[in-house]
């Protein structure tokens, strides 16, 4: 008779009840004394200490959840890349030190500005034992050219043809000089897959029931949807200097910070990259494992997604950027891992233009602290009808991103802008980045991403040039300068052009706001060691360095 006995209502309240119990339980386990701890690892490191022992199986958590596919042509996010970087390799290879070296191609030449010739290794085999041929490589590269949905398609804009020109040689012909293209062979634009397997799999390539056929140190083994992806070591791996020591890696998909932290501390998960900020203090202090920080071209930024509305006004964009406490965000939201960036391209992606861009960055007065009065003064000249338009920001519903969103809304409120923060489920957030219909009239989008290679042209091609994946507002202000830089052979001249581009972007504060550059971090329990601490896990077979500590 009474409502209190209704099972429906009890079910309805169960989630919160569980939350409240968890709060009480976790609160009982924590105290304010925990915060005064020292970080293991000290400064930034590229590699954690080598793990030399053989291990049967480890569980590694993929912090952004289960991917939809591990197809390297259609996956460009932390989750799939962290997994398939151990399975599929590129013509060239980026090292954890952010250097580019030969990979599946042992050498390359540039006989004229319109030709790149790649000499392939002859000792590489796919997991099924078949040798990697020039046909496989030509087919793999051509997919980026012909498949408009391929993530790297935009990097092939100047490619006229890809052809086998020898038993172990492939030649790429360009329609115009492109001095970004070759280095991109160290990104997923240079990935090599088995032609026969790919043709047979078709659109199911990389899907849970189909998997992949590549040449990396780990082979796709099993995908239990909703639970894990298993990769087993490939005994026929060509690179004898990088022999995997862990027989099987199960990648799990926990996304909740508390669950990840508890799993790590309890030994149910052996390791993770991107250690949950909320668990940093406990994990650093724990004797169950070790924590390391490394360099990484990871940038948290705001993308101007709507060319109309208040964000169309340069002074509004600049004022908002001035009002945001990026320094505080780097310290508080990212647990001290974030350093404010002065330019739109993060410093670790300055690459060949390092000297020029460092000089330009030094000339930018902003240090990332909020300058409310200056921002208000800048807004004084903005027409009232522009200021009256609401600015919307969408962030995914995660602890850090919500905190970031709240900070940005507060900055906008302080300078009198009308601002709306929309927090959307984390699992559907990528739709805002890639689907214009979902994005609608959203003015600003949170992003945290990395360049494919340590080269400012790669960053700009993605973020600021017409057609770039993250150029949501269709900004075209640097197209001409960018094209000029891309076609310039002389590195010094190219660097000067890149510096001009960055200055223009900074002057216009478009199409994104410089945010904070983040250090990478990794935590492993005492069973294992060896993972690169630098941000290499999205393009380098990092898991091949893992090994047992005993």
């Amino acid at each position, binding site marked *: 008779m009474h409502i209190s006995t209704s099972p429906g209502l009890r079910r309805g309240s169960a989630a919160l009840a569980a939350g409240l119990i968890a709060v009480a339980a976790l609160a009982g386990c924590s105290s304010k004394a925990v915060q005064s701890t020292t970080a293991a690892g000290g400064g930034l490191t590229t590699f954690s200490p080598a793990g030399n022992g053989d291990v049967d199986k480890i569980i590694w958590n993929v912090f952004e959840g289960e991917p939809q596919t591990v197809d390297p042509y259609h996956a460009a996010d932390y989750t799939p890349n962290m997994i398939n970087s151990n399975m599929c390799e590129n013509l060239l290879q980026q090292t954890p030190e952010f250097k580019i070296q030969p990979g599946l191609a042992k050498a390359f030449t540039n006989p004229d500005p319109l030709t790149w010739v790649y000499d392939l290794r002859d000792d590489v085999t796919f997991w099924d034992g078949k040798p990697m041929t020039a046909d496989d490589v030509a087919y793999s590269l051509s997919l980026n050219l012909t498949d408009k949905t391929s993530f790297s398609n935009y990097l092939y804009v100047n490619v006229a043809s890809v052809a086998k020109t020898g038993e172990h040689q492939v030649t790429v012909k360009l329609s115009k000089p492109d001095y970004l293209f070759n280095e991109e062979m160290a990104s997923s634009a240079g990935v090599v897959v088995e032609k026969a397997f790919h043709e047979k799999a078709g659109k199911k390539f990389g899907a849970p029931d189909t998997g992949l056929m590549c040449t990396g140190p780990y082979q796709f083994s099993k995908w239990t949807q909703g639970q894990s992806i298993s990769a087993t070591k490939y005994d026929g791996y060509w690179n004898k200097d990088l022999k995997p020591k862990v027989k099987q890696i199960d990648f799990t998909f926990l996304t909740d910070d*508390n669950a990840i932290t508890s799993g790590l501390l309890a030994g149910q998960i052996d390791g993770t990259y991107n250690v949950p900020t909320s668990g940093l203090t406990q994990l650093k202090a724990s004797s169950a494992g070790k924590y390391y920080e490394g360099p990484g071209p990871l940038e948290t930024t705001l993308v101007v997604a709507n060319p109309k509305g208040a964000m169309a006004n340069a002074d509004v964009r600049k004022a908002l950027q001035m009002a945001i406490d990026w320094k505080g965000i780097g310290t508080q939201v990212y647990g001290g891992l974030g350093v404010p960036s002065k330019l739109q391209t993060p410093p670790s992606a300055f690459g060949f233009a390092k000297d020029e861009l460092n000089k330009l960055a030094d000339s930018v007065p902003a240090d990332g602290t909020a300058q409310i009065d200056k921002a208000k003064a800048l807004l004084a000249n903005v027409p009232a009808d522009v200021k009256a338009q609401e600015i919307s920001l969408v962030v995914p519903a995660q602890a850090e991103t919500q905190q970031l969103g709240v900070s940005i809304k507060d900055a906008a409120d302080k300078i009198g802008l009308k601002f709306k923060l*929309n927090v959307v489920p984390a699992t559907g957030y990528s739709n805002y980045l890639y689907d214009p219909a979902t994005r609608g009239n959203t003015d600003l989008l949170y992003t945290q991403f990395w360049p494919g290679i340590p080269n400012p042209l790669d960053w700009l091609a993605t973020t600021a040039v017409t057609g770039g994946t993250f150029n949501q507002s269709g900004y075209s202000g640097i197209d001409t300068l960018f094209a000029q830089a891309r076609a310039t052979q002389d590195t010094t001249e190219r660097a000067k052009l890149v510096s001009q581009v960055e200055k223009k972007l900074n002057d216009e504060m478009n199409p994104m706001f410089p945010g904070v550059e983040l250090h990478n971090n990794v935590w492993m329990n005492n069973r294992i060691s060896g993972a690169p601490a630098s941000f290499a896990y999205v393009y380098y077979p990092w898991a091949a360095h893992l090994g047992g500590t005993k």
Partner: protein
Amino acid sequence: MTALAAEGRMVARTARRMRRTGALGLSGWTAVGALVLIVLIAAVGPLLNSVDPNAVSLSEAYQNPSAAHLLGTDANGRDLFARLVDGSRTALTGPFLVVLVSTILGTSLALAAVWFGGWFDQVSVRVMDAVFAFPGLLLAILATALFGSGLTAAVAALSIAYIPYIGRIVRSAALRERNLPYVAALRVQGVHGVLISLKHILPNISGLIVANATLAFGFALMDLAGLSFIGLGVQAPTPDWGAMVGTGMSGILQGFPDEALFASALIVITVAAVNVLGDRLTERSEALS
């Protein structure tokens, strides 16, 4: 042992007497006191508190309680006391709306079903059974998926989900009333059915309605807080107890459980008080009938 048994018997006797007389008793009045205090905080607290609950100061994150911040600050350096006080408004307004809407609609539907009977009654009962079978929280999650996160969609969905809980109880009570001699007498006098339902049956079962609406308030508060906890209810930066439990979770692992604990405590106290009051009101209603 003997003394304890005697004491137990005395407590049981007192409880039985209270149930017979319909008195609220100490627990009931304690619940009333707690609820009055919480409602007063929600009504006038934000007016008396000069601190902006949304003012961010990252350099003041996770401050301990002080004169400037009575309960300390959260991860964004916002004043916890101000947010808890301001959050009481959203925490209480949502459930109030759910209960108001579902009680009005559920009662109206039940009274109409009882009065008209026949196919209308059968259809009403089947519809309420169908809605009853669908978990309210799931309906609310679907609504937020369709119409976007926020309090409006969640309140609308829960209002619909709660109609059967009120409607079924009101229907059974009204059926009993309808068969009593006073209703037959009124019909013989030619009083219109609507008037009989509203002026005679409804007042006689109002105690039961209020009691169950009170209980429903507690459950609605838990449901809405749960939705905010998972990010589908009240949206940041608006303060809300459920949302504060959610955002405060990250602070717990860092050694700062205050936000989640304080918000949780307020939810528990409010729901417990509402449930105790609801139980006492139900007993009172049964005693009086």
